[in-house]
C-alpha cells in the first residue's frame, strides 16, 4: 500500500522534526524527495541518511524570489514535482496587544504566503500530468486558537481556506489539496515549552501523550498516495483527541 515509486516530492522545512519525518516516510514509500530548509547541514545529513533519490535545495521562505525559484530548482533536480508538502513554519509568539507588525508579517509570510507561492509554482506541471498532491501542515491552533499565537493561528487557519479554494479549482485535473493539522508533537518547537506548559497541555490530550513526528508523516503519506485520490479539501487532524473537529 501507498507506493510512491516514480513520484517526486518537495518538502519544505525538512530540517525540522516533522519535515524530516515526512521526507523519510515519502522516501521510504519510493518517492524521490527534495529537502528544503534554511539550514544546509541538517538537510545534507538527512539526504545522506536517505541515500539515493534525495536532493537538497536550501531556501529562505521569507524571501519571495527564493520561494519562486524553489519549485523550478526541485523540478530540475528530480524531473518534476508531483507532491508538494508545505511544512515549513515559524513562530513569533506574543500577546496580541504587544505583537508587532513585523512579528505578524514574518509569520504570515513564511507560514502562509510562501505556501501560496509554492503551490502556484508547482501547479503547471501537475495540471499537465493530470496528477498532483499538495499537502499543507497546518495546526490544531488554526482551528481552536491559542493565546499568544494570533499570528500563527491566523496563518494556519489561512492555509485551510487556501487549500479548500484551490482544491475546488483543480479537482477535475487529478490534483488533490489537503491539510494535516498536528496537535502537540515532540519537536524543537514544543521542546521550547516549559514543564508547566507541557503538563497543562497533556491534561487536555485524551491520548495522554504528545504525538510523534512519524504520526504526522503517516497522515501526509496517506494524503500523498494514489489511494487518497478522492480526498480533497480535507483537513486530517492528528492530535490525540485534544480537539475533535
Amino acid at each position, binding site marked *: 500500500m501507498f507506493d510512491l515509486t516514480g513520484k517526486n516530492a518537495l518538502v519544505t522545512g525538512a530540517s525540522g522534526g516533522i519535515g524530516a519525518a515526512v521526507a523519510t516516510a515519502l522516501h521510504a514509500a519510493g518517492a524521490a524527495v527534495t529537502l528544503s530548509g534554511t539550514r544546509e547541514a541538517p538537510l545534507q545529513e538527512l539526504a545522506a541518511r536517505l541515500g539515493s533519490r534525495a536532493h537538497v535545495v536550501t531556501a529562505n521562505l521569507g524571501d519571495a524570489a527564493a520561494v519562486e525559484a524553489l519549485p523550478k530548482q526541485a523540478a530540475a533536480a528530480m524531473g518534476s514535482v508531483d507532491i508538494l508538502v508545505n511544512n515549513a513554519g515559524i513562530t513569533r509568539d506574543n500577546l496580541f496587544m504587544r505583537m508587532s507588525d513585523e512579528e505578524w508579517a514574518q509569520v504570515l509570510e513564511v507560514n502562509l504566503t510562501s505556501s501560496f507561492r509554492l503551490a502556484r509554482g508547482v501547479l*503547471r506541471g501537475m*495540471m*499537465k500530468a493530470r496528477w498532483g498532491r499538495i499537502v499543507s501542515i497546518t495546526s490544531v491552533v488554526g482551528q481552536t486558537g491559542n493565546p499568544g499565537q494570533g499570528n500563527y493561528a491566523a496563518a494556519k487557519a489561512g492555509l485551510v481556506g487556501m487549500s479548500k479554494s484551490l482544491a475546488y*479549482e*483543480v479537482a*477535475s*485535473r487529478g490534483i488533490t489539496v489537503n491539510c494535516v493539522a498536528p496537535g502537540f508533537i515532540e519537536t524543537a518547537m514544543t521542546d521550547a515549552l516549559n514543564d508547566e506548559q507541557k503538563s497543562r497541555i497533556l491534561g487536555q490530550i485524551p491520548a495522554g501523550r504528545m504525538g510523534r513526528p512519524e504520526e504526522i508523516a503517516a497522515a501526509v503519506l496517506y494524503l500523498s498516495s494514489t489511494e487518497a485520490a478522492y480526498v480533497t479539501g480535507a483537513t486530517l487532524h492528528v492530535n490525540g483527541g485534544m480537539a475533535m473537529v
Partner: protein
Amino acid sequence: MSDIADRVKKIVVEHLGVEEEKVTETASFIDDLGADSLDTVELVMAFEEEFGIEIPDDAAETIQTFGDAVKFIQQATA
C-alpha cells in the same frame, strides 16, 4: 489558413475534445467550445509551450476566440 492556425487548432481540438469544424475564426472558447475558466488557462499554457512565447495574464484575458489566439500568436512570433 496559416501553419500557426493549424497548430493552434490542433491544440484546441485535443484539449477541449471538440470537432475540428467547430473551431472557427469567431468560435469562443467558453461560449462555443465548452471550455471552463481553467481550460482557458491550460490552453494559454499549451500555446506558450507550442510556440515558445510568454503570454502575460492581461493579454491572455483578451484571447476569447480561436481567431484571437491565432492573431495574438502571429504577432508574438512575427
